[in-house]
């Protein structure tokens, strides 16, 4: 057999046997502590933990074990992170597409979350109204319950990148909602909240008004959350609202100084990281803030702040924790997803211990409940929180809202 044929055979054998060899080596290595799985490329961001297939006769006979095992085996190979990143890089570089479901490439290569785009493009005030009319009284009940226990309750609405920048929605995504619905849903909600007497901080309108005063966008290209200036402005609003409600200045509103930095870091690149590419996309400079506030007249008091909401509250929580009176802040993301103490912050987040959470939620001096405008009156964490308070404190009777007649 000639040299070329031997070369053919060698290439074929390597192609067949090398991946299996790597898998075998990885399996052996991971069984020997303290070694971990061999990684050829950086680990994947946002990858779900592989399901451990549980073999049983029934699950083998109905094929479920085989399906789960087949899905698992690929994720165990050291090639897996490389394969995912390489595939995503080709899709991104050659076709300008994300390889990750749930991310949309908007105009100017700005990254958007699909669920935010879908929500914005399907807004309907008529469908929203009954949900809002049902939820606002419950927010008032939660607020009254906290106030009856001598505590403070504040409802915060945070903005959506898509709703703040609808021009980013790419032309290939139909955006059927009428502009009256897209723009009118928030004012309707604010009107209903006002009728219900809920203490509200509207950072959506605040941010839109603030945008014109700054020479940069309040949302980074590769991130889904507001940048640190947007978050700091929200922190100021929240601190001011809490001071008004409490009648003390224990949470002084900070002064904001910002500077542009050429290389954004997390969370301003959270969607870029979620793309799981071989090379991060280039980003424009992003502002970062330093905050300062004076200690209140009369000195600081220890304050425990609880936050139930989503990831938009991470930065405001960090900003509040760095204030002169350093309140103790604990955040329960989406009620049961993550438990984050500030400090140290999101790097030290843990799973939620329900018993611990239940005690501390009732113990907080201040409770901030947050909904992003993408979820307002429709969140899953809201009803869970409401049910808990009802069970623990027995909530006051719900108010009856008069029909909110005039659409804004």
């Amino acid at each position, binding site marked *: *057999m000639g040299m070329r*044929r031997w070369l*053919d*055979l060698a*290439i*074929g054998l390597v*192609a*067949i*046997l090398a*991946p*299996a060899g790597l*898998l075998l080596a990885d399996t052996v290595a991971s069984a020997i502590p303290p070694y971990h799985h061999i990684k050829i490329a950086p680990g994947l961001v946002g990858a779900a933990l592989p399901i451990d297939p549980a073999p049983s006769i029934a699950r*083998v*006979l109905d*094929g479920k074990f*085989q399906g789960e*095992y*087949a*899905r698992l*085996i*690929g994720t165990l*190979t050291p*090639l*897996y992170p*490389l*394969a*995912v990143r*390489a*595939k*995503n890089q*080709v*899709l991104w570089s*050659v*076709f*300008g*597409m994300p*390889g990750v479901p749930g991310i949309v490439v908007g105009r100017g290569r700005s990254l958007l979350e699909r669920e935010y785009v879908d929500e914005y493009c399907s807004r309907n005030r008529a469908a929203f109204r009954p949900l809002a009319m049902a939820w606002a009284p419950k927010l008032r009940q939660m607020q009254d319950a906290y106030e009856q226990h001598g505590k403070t309750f504040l409802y915060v609405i945070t903005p959506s990148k898509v709703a703040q920048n609808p021009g980013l929605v790419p*032309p*290939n*995504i*139909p955006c059927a909602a009428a502009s009256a619905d897209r723009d009118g849903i928030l004012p309707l909600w604010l009107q209903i909240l006002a009728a219900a007497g809920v203490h509200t901080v509207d950072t959506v309108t605040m941010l839109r008004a603030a945008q014109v005063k700054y020479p940069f966008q309040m949302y980074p290209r590769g991130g889904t959350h507001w940048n640190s200036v947007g978050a700091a402005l929200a922190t100021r609003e929240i601190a001011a609202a809490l001071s008004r409600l409490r009648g003390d200045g224990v949470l002084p509103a900070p002064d904001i100084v910002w500077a542009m930095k050429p290389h954004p870091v997390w969370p301003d690149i959270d969607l870029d990281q979620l793309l799981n590419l071989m090379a991060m996309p280039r980003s424009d400079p992003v502002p970062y803030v330093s905050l300062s506030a004076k200690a209140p007249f009369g000195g600081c008091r220890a304050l425990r702040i609880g936050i139930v909401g989503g990831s938009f509250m991470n930065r405001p929580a960090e900003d509040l924790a760095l204030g002169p009176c350093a309140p103790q802040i604990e955040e329960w993301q989406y009620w049961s997803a993550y438990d984050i103490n500030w400090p140290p912050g999101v790097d030290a987040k843990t799973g939620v211990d329900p018993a611990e959470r239940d005690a501390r939620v009732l113990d907080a001096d201040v409770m901030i409940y947050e909904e992003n405008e993408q979820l307002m009156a429709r969140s899953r964490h809201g009803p869970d929180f409401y049910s808990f308070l009802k069970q623990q404190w027995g909530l006051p009777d719900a108010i009856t809202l008069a029909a909110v007649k005039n659409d804004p």
Partner: protein
Amino acid sequence: MLFYEPLFLLVFLPVVFAAFLLLHRYSGGRLWVLLPASVFFYLWSEPLFVPVVLASCALDYVLGRRLQRRGLLALGIAANVAMLVVYKYTGFLTDNLDVILGALGMAPIHAGRIALPIGVSFIVFEKITYLVDIHRGRSNPAPNFRTYLLYVFLFPKLLAGPIIKYHELEAQLLTPGHTRLADMATGFRRFMLGAVKKTLLADPLATGADAVFAVPAAALSSGAAWWGVGLFTLQIYLDFSAYSDMAIGLARMFGFRLRENFNRPYISCSITEFWRRWHISLSTWIRDYLYIPLGGNRVAPWRIYLNLWVCFLASGLWHGAAWTYVGWGAYNGLFLVLDRLFLLRWLDRMPRVLANGVTLLVIMAGWAIFRAGSLEQAWTLLTAMVHPGQMGLLVWPTPDVVAAATVAAILSLLPRGPGFDRFAHGVIAWPAGLFAIRLALSLLFVVAVLKALADPFKPFLYFRF
């Protein structure tokens, strides 16, 4: 377990191939590697159906040794067809019977659903060829049960063909000889080609076609309807031919030569020619085991036309238990009859490119029926296609789908170009050209494997037939 899944690529194939390399030179070595591997391969996917197949194979084997007795051939065929009907058509038959019973004011039957085993249609057709080939004197009964089992369970062709008639494989089963390294290399290259076609072309095409067919047909614009049907036309060819490439390649690696299943079907200049180039193993099975027993070309013209139409009706039903498949079969049968009557003469008078274009339109209309979720959806889709001004939803194509469609269209239609065969042979005969093709294929295979690792599960179209 599909051929491009990590479990197959990284575990099953290396283990089985390594064992084969070690043992194939010994007497019986090939059988004792491939038979347990093939049975395990099918057990992995269909643990409950394998015992049924084994029992059915035992019946075939016993009957095969006694076919000189009257009625045993009919019994064997009936037993195999019954297995197919029970597993594949029970739901379809009872649903339609319930409609009739309901119309008559009677209570419905409400039969439970039976899970459709993967590859059942292919397996049953192959088992029928064993019995008929023995009866016709074309083959001898298998010398032992394990040889017959290997014929039925041979894993490269088990799930989605090609449908290999027993007489085509008999000699290779009985006198295997040594598998040459050249065959292993050639087989692996064919396998690589299939993997590249499936993961890099067929899968993006599937995503694009699914996006169109997910929209209610009445809401589609004419352009969107054409786009969706066009994508599916390319998808089904790339997907199915890719599987056949992998099956043929794997079989060659293990020393078996299987017949080709596709021969550039989209350059056909008539439906008659199309069915000589598309799913060749099925169309020759229909010819040899259905059309010829019905009389073939030896009966009166009206019987020929009826037989043709009935055969393709059966072919449509073989593809699936739904009226759309029956409709597609009837549609193809109609055009085969029309070819006999006048259409073939008419097309033969046209320039080849024009005849090819007309035939392609007929084929695409057929695929619209095949892919639709119901006859109503098929009708609505076809109506949209023939009304160019029809407004409706545009389904925005993504760049990867456009790229895959472009490459797939070129691959499918380029052989129609003048001098293509001469050019292709010239490139292959040129050592540097051959090296370049093989290098490109190897690199694309690496990309295909990485994509297969990274992609979520996407099954082959034909593996549920």
